[in-house]
């Protein structure tokens, strides 16, 4: 089946037909809207609750009657959390590791995706199988081996050490995801551009790369989320306080307060701080992400 034609057709028809449907009144539409709003509220509530709580003082939070609006709230919790001085280094560490992971993961996965979607070669099927199955290894028993590995390579407490493990964890699924996108870009397009006088590199950047961008964004989001949220590997490899990533920092925060009187307001403020960069990242790539998933979906 020619996936490329499906994409083109879908892309051309979808936006064109949508306004047409809006003209007719659909009785189900009102009901669907109500249901959608309810679902949206249900999904957003825990996020709202985190925000709300982060603005309230702890004594209010430990009462049995919930306060639904942060009336009388303040940014005190945020100030208290940030003034400990450990947030910024952790943010820097998380950004360094996450960006390293995303860049290398996309690069490696892109090359591999190119290989398996543009070439037929011996070992191709086994490679794809291995890529799928390798994700099934449970990570909970690996920590001693991972520590020993990184210790012998002298990569403990380093961005590189953690990133290597993260890339290996994320790359299998990314290969699988990108494979569909690469297959969807017809090589003929590139060749036609070269006939028109573009060099191979120019053709790649002007023709192929823009078509791949949504796929790279979608896989990049996946890699970003995985690297940003991971904490069991980080816990073992980054033992020094100054190399903590944000999840470790947040975990330390939750655990420290579990031993003493839990300051829920501060824990929620800390949680919010960890979530904010992800939300900013999502907002930046949001448009691309949806189109990326759209394009990727056709090829499955």
């Amino acid at each position: 089946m020619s996936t490329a034609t499906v994409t083109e057709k879908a892309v051309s028809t979808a936006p064109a037909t949508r306004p047409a449907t809006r003209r007719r009144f659909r009785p189900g539409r009102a009901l669907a809207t109500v249901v959608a709003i309810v679902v949206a509220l249900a999904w957003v509530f825990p996020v709202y609750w985190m925000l709300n709580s982060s603005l309230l003082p702890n004594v209010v939070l430990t009462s049995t009657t919930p306060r639904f609006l942060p009336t009388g709230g303040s940014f005190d919790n945020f100030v208290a959390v940030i003034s400990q001085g450990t947030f910024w280094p952790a943010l820097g560490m998380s950004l360094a590791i996450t960006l390293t992971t995303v860049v290398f993961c996309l690069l490696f996965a892109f090359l591999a995706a190119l290989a398996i979607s543009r070439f037929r070669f011996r070992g191709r099927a086994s490679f794809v199988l291995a890529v799928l199955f390798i994700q099934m290894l449970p990570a909970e028993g690996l920590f001693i081996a991972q520590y020993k590995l990184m210790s012998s390579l002298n990569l403990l407490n380093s961005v590189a050490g953690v990133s290597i493990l993260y890339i290996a964890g994320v790359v299998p699924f990314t290969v699988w995801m990108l494979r569909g996108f690469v297959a969807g870009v017809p090589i003929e397009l590139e060749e036609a551009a070269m006939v028109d006088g573009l060099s191979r590199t120019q053709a790649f950047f002007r023709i192929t790369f823009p078509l791949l961008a949504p796929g790279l964004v979608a896989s990049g989001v996946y890699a970003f989320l995985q690297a940003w949220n991971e904490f069991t590997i980080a816990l073992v490899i980054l033992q020094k306080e100054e190399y903590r990533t944000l999840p470790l920092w947040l975990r330390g925060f939750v655990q420290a307060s579990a031993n003493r009187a839990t300051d829920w307001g501060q824990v929620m403020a800390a949680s919010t701080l960890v979530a904010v960069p992800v939300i900013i990242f999502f907002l930046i790539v949001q448009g691309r992400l949806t189109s990326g998933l759209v394009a990727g979906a056709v090829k499955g």
Partner: protein
Amino acid sequence: MTAVSTPARTRQDSPPQQVRHRRRPVAPYLLLVPTIAILLLALGYPLAWQFWTSTQKFGLAQQFGKPPEFVGMANYVQLFTDPQTWAVVGRSIAFCLVNAAVTVIVGVLVALLMNAVGAVTRLILQIAMLLAWAMPVIATMTVWIWLFDWHRGIVNWALTSLGFDFTNHNWLEQPLSFYFVATVIVVWMSVPFVAFSVYAGLTQISEEVMEAAALDGATPRQRFFSIILPMIRPVLMIITLLQVIWDLRVFAQIKMLQDAGAPLASTDLLGTYIYRLGVGSSDFGMASALSIFVLVLTVALSFFYVLHLMKEDS
């Protein structure tokens, strides 16, 4: 960035498409080198270590330098003769299937909803999903545990306000209600990914086809099963597989719920059980044996599915 030009250069060296199938090109192997290298480096040694350790009596003393004793399959024998292992395996499979199924079904429903409503409502729904998706796991668990807290949790408060007496009801006390809470959380976290992917698939279905079907008198139900479902089938297949893999090895959510106060033995799933054998009891031989077993189990469970997936792919 020089890296992107690499594929271009390689392609230049390789002959045109038709010839590619006949000769054995070097290019694809070169392209795979980085991925294979990093997988070998990061997973090769740990996997080998794990396999080797699973055949040894390896505890904390061995970790501190005492030579380990080779015990062959003894760890596996002990593992398979322990009824606790099978209880955990059974619970994990059940938990994984229920969660994957609920996640995929709810995800598809949310996607259909996105498709059915106007642009503004859709945006609201999408933003809500994005926010939930963006929440870090630790933050998510902290909030949810708090929502379900027995004494001051808002869930109990709301149910009590609605006239049910849930004052001081402890959700984590009974395994079934523990798993219910875990399922709610896991589904909440996983649905956005499924919903977005499926919604992406739905937007590919041309409106003309749907309208034509409607004019032919097809019920919404018929339209869903004969038009929509076949179209989003490839997405559904891969997403279902991923959910099964991810839910079978669910760890962080269960561990944090247990830490919040739940009976350990009756709520352990494979992830936490491996953790307890390893970190908890320092029995790394057994933990490794169980890890290898989980790997084999997952491969076995999904083998035909994956084969099918690959056949469709090519």
